[in-house]
């Protein structure tokens, strides 16, 4: 609307004030009140737009509690997704209508970006970290999934779809097989396999802190800081345990970087959260 108004003004002036013989231009120095008016009013309008956009953004970056979680690993040039219940998908995500879905994303290599235009969501997917995004599907259908951060040769081929199904159809899809147990249970397998349980026992006798009920709680570190045990904390503790030592424990946890894949990491995180 503003641009239309200005365009109109310009066209109007251009026509109305064309050079005419004997009609000189009127020299106008300026007008401070006018300048202030057309600075402050736009500023006010801008602040309104800012707040409006900020509120939307805040909601968009705050996943609701109780959302179903999907772990996403991006790599050149495909999307690997795993449901909590254990189903794995490549380049496709099946979800039921009406249920909040929260995605926990990481990349195996370079920066990608998970973009579903129809849902108005986009989130960069970073190597070495988890980022999150969430949506609430309201209509059944198939929607484009794009990678929106340039990632190399097949960046434009790293596309897929989000398939939103009616609840009944979703149940049918779920039981269509392919699940090898929930993520939490495969996480438990990895936990036992890699020997984590020798130090991280459910009682307080272990050489490592107990992990029961840990997720989401504050953790006191030996250097005095207090951090929240979120997905990134768990991931970091596995890959570079020396970065944050829990108060009262020795820094003896072995480093697992290079020894565990992204999928296994996701499973472990899911297990710790359960």
């Amino acid at each position, binding site marked *: 609307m*503003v*641009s239309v108004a200005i*365009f109109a*003004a*310009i066209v109007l*002036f*251009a026509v109305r*004030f*064309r*050079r*005419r013989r004997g*009609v*000189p*231009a*009127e*020299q*106008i*120095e*300026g007008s401070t009140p*006018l300048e202030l008016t*057309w*600075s402050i009013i736009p*500023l006010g309008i*801008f*602040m309104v*737009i*800012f707040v*409006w*956009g*900020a509120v*939307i*953004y805040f909601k*968009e*970056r705050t996943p609701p509690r109780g959302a179903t979680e999907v772990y996403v690993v991006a790599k*050149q040039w495909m999307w690997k997704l795993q449901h909590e219940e254990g189903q794995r998908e490549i380049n496709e995500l099946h979800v039921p209508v009406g249920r909040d879905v929260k995605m926990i994303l990481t990349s195996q*290599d*370079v*920066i990608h*970006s998970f973009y579903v*235009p129809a849902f108005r969501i*986009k*989130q*960069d997917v*970073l*190597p070495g*970290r988890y*980022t999150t995004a969430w949506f609430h599907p309201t209509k059944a259908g198939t929607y*484009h999934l794009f*990678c*929106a*951060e*340039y*990632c*190399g*040769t*097949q*960046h*434009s*081929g790293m*596309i897929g779809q989000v398939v939103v199904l009616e609840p009944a159809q979703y149940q049918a899809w779920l039981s269509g097989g392919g699940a090898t147990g929930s993520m939490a249970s495969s996480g438990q397998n990895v936990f036992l396999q890699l020997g984590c349980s020798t130090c991280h026992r459910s009682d307080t006798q272990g050489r490592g802190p107990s992990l029961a009920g840990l997720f989401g709680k504050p953790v006191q570190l030996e250097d005095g800081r207090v951090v929240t045990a979120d997905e990134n904390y768990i991931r970091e503790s596995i890959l570079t345990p020396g970065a944050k030592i829990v108060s009262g424990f020795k820094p003896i946890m072995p480093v697992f970087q290079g020894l565990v894949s992204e999928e296994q990491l996701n499973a472990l995180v899911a297990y710790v959260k359960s």
Partner: protein
Amino acid sequence: MKPEPRGSGRRAGDDYSVGRETAGTEGAIAMATAAITAERENYLNQEYGIKSWLLTVDHKRIALLYLLSITFFFFIGGFFALLIRLELLTPAGDLVQADTYNKLFTMHGQVMIFFFLIPSIPAVLGNFLVPLMIGARDLAFPRINLLSWYLYIIAGIMMLHCMLTGGVDTGWTFYTPFSTAFSNTKVIEAGLAIFVSGFSSILTGLNFVVTIHRMRAPGMTWNRLPLFIWAHYATSIIQLLGTPVIAVTLVLVVLERAFHLGIFDPTRGGDPILFQHLFWFYSHPAVYIMILPSMGVVTEIVPCFTRKRIFGYKFVAMSSIGIAVLGFLVWAHHMFVAGISLYAALIFSMLSYLVAVPSAIKVFNWTATMYKGSITFATPMLYAFGFIGLFLMGGLTGLFLAALGIDVHVTDTYFVVAHFHYIMVGGAVMGYLGGMHFWWPKISGRMYPEALGKLAALLVFVGFNLTFFPQFILGYLGMPRRYWQYPPEFQVLNVLSTAGSTVLAVGYVLPMLYFLWSMRYGKIAPANPWGAAGLEWTTTSPPPTFNFDHTPVVDWEAYDYENIPAPEEARVAG
């Protein structure tokens, strides 16, 4: 308040400096006659030979050296753009391979930004006009000016070599870890080329700031400076303070890639977001380097072709400084979905809205200048109109992008591509072309053919809109950027865009051809064909090597159109 009587500081009988009184018809005829009958010595004919050009320290000759070089790179970047648009005619990737396409958009961006847009107006028009406009004989450091050009040429050769031996495919944004640990292309060479070009930019900025501070003619106070000078001053501050940051960032990227360090690589303890912060800390202010000079050009053209002083001089001057300062505070609005904290995003979004205010002030002031003016429609004015309209659209879409909620949907899509092309092409390039037409008589001593000038302006305007408006829609519908192949539903808009780009290309080629033609066959230009205000118009067209025979003493305000008669010539009739 009536200014002092004219000419109180001038010397009578000046051969070279034409007083304001004779800038009207009689003066014009006198000058033209003199020019035809006895070709006066000017900076072009003072000395011939390639050495006199390659070793010149005359700011005007250096400006022409830059003109040739940036035009060359403009066409290289434009060629890449044409290939991109041709590929995008069809959804499938069928013209070039994916890797080639990735190199094309990367190098289109790098060449256009670092080798065309950033130098363009400052290095050509700025170099030529800054000393003339302030009444100086040259810039403060003429030899450093020449060094600037040579650094640009060295950087250009490095870039060309990089392109010819494989190119680079990281996107002009060089995001890590792709650029440092995954790309198989000549990242180091491209990075070093841009590093060198950065020094060219820094030295130009340094030269301008010192010149404007220390070499103004007596009476040329800050408040009497043409706003073109204010715009270049602000631009130079950004060049000085911002460019070193991209320089050091590129150094770190080169070191990381060469020695497998881990500064930006998460598998080695580093952080890729740190790269993005360092990169955008420069690259956002860089866009103001590209647009401010263009705004300065428009601020010279509009008063001349409305025969009115600019509305709100002080506000326009301060808005340039405001844009430069605020421009340093908004870089992370390129990173809203990159994984920065929510609170950082809020702050940067709000600051981004603040920086829009000074730009809005300029647009309002230009419009207000037209009110009760006496408007004519010569080619420079057409470009100015085009600039204002297209910059407005680009700027408003910037406001959409600054809104966090909207940005999530449209960032990294063609919406952003359209937004920045509206500003950089619809804005900066239109301003550049408008300025080239406006000052061409002064630079070359010839008039360009007005009819062709108007035709080219029209082609550029139409072609531009046809090329880039569909891209707003494409982005909104979800087409991501940097896509070699795309889902078929996006094809129609892409075809429209490609069609527009061919028209745009013709619009760009035309001026090159007729400017060249005019150097031989164009009408001889008088000192002040447009009846414009400004010290540069008091010299001959072209000016003599040392600009002014006697240092002008300024005792009138800027844009003193009340006292300058409009040129009677029919050629500027609307």
